[in-house]
């Protein structure tokens, strides 16, 4: 079979912190399968500037900002599975991840204004997403404000809600705290296996 292409975006400004550790656990498990090819992008190094709100993409079908998004735009479209990891800062995803999400406006313009396909029709329903997050606070609602933003991002890049999974671990603040979390690693590995299984069935 064709390789399953996984694009992993580490959205935290902190390298090898809690949200990136969760991401790595998910990726390491997937990489054990020879059919999986993984590309990992460190968002902080990817040079993604914020959306200017100019709406030029509604006419041009492209962004006028030329930066790291030129590459990431194509990587997002090529992948079968897009994994975004981002910590919660002040009740939502960190600003670096919000910059990426807002730059997905070009996909929204393509889909809803220009009425053009974002991915070829045969790939619709065969795109998958995982949102990985961590939060320092232990409040059960700490991820609530991030979820509509993330759903909107996946929606415009043609990942259906039913194919979007979540791995969200709270009460981990200091670097590496997720390693002493009682269930986080097992949750990451088990989610990784189940998403891969579904992808194999659907893409096979």
């Amino acid at each position, binding site marked *: 079979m064709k390789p399953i292409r996984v694009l992993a975006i580490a959205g*935290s*400004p*902190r390298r090898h*912190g809690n949200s990136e550790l969760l991401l790595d656990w998910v990726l390491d498990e997937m990489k054990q399968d020879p059919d999986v090819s993984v590309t990992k992008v460190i968002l902080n190094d990817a040079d993604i500037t*914020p*959306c*200017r*709100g*100019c709406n030029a993409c509604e006419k041009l079908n492209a962004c006028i900002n030329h930066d790291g998004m030129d590459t990431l735009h194509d990587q997002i479209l090529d992948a079968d599975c897009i994994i975004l990891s981002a*910590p919660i*800062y*002040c*009740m*939502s995803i*960190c*600003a*670096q991840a*919000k*910059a990426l*999400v*807002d730059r*997905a*406006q070009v996909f929204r313009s393509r889909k809803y204004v220009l009425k053009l396909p974002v991915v070829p029709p045969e790939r619709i329903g065969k795109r998958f997403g995982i949102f990985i997050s961590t939060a320092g606070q232990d409040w059960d*609602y700490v991820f*609530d*404000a*991030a979820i*509509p*933003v993330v*759903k*909107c*991002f996946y929606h415009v890049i043609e990942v259906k809600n039913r194919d979007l999974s979540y791995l969200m671990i709270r009460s981990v*603040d*200091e*670097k590496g705290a997720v390693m002493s979390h009682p269930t986080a690693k097992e949750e990451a590995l088990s989610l990784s296996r189940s998403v891969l299984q579904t992808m194999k069935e659907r893409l096979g």
Partner: protein
Amino acid sequence: MKETVTVIGLSGSPRRRGNTEQLLDRFLEGASDAGGITEKVVLSTLEYSSCKGCNACHKTGSCIMDDAVRELYDRMLAADCIIITSPIYTMGITTELKSFIDRAHYLWVRHFILGSHIISPEGKKYRRGYFLSTAGMDQEDVFDTAYPMLKALFNILGFTHCVGVLARNMDGYGGITGHPTALDDAYRKGSEAVKGIMAGRPCLEKVKR
């Protein structure tokens, strides 16, 4: 009777003189006409970086980045009324505003960890914070995700979160000038805010969420 009322309005939109900034301008006009000393800050014209998550402030209470953010927070802490504004992009506040709010972490640390930033409940009663926003979509819940961030920010700066102005369906109205009430509401709120603070009246229209 308080004679000098300082009002700082933050424009969080990357687009100059768009719907949200016009809304802010009307609020500031109302505030100024009522006798307030107003100032508008356009975040997209300032130089600042996003929070790096280094947690150095957990020990020192200060941010290692020396840019426009600290000076602005100092002035906001000294103001009587602050207005935070942002259009909704992808169901949330803009990156510019989120980046600015993330940088307030050192104030959170000062308050909750180091105890060096004291928020007086009495002062908070009379200081007013407003959130103004616009959204292209006509979806009822389109502003919802902004609130937890604003609540946290107003709390840490010591302002009562007063009901502001939310104008959705900008796409349908063809912009803020097509909206039946938003600009007038903003002017009235600006005027009421300054008059209320001058008279020593706490805000009664508080945000409940």
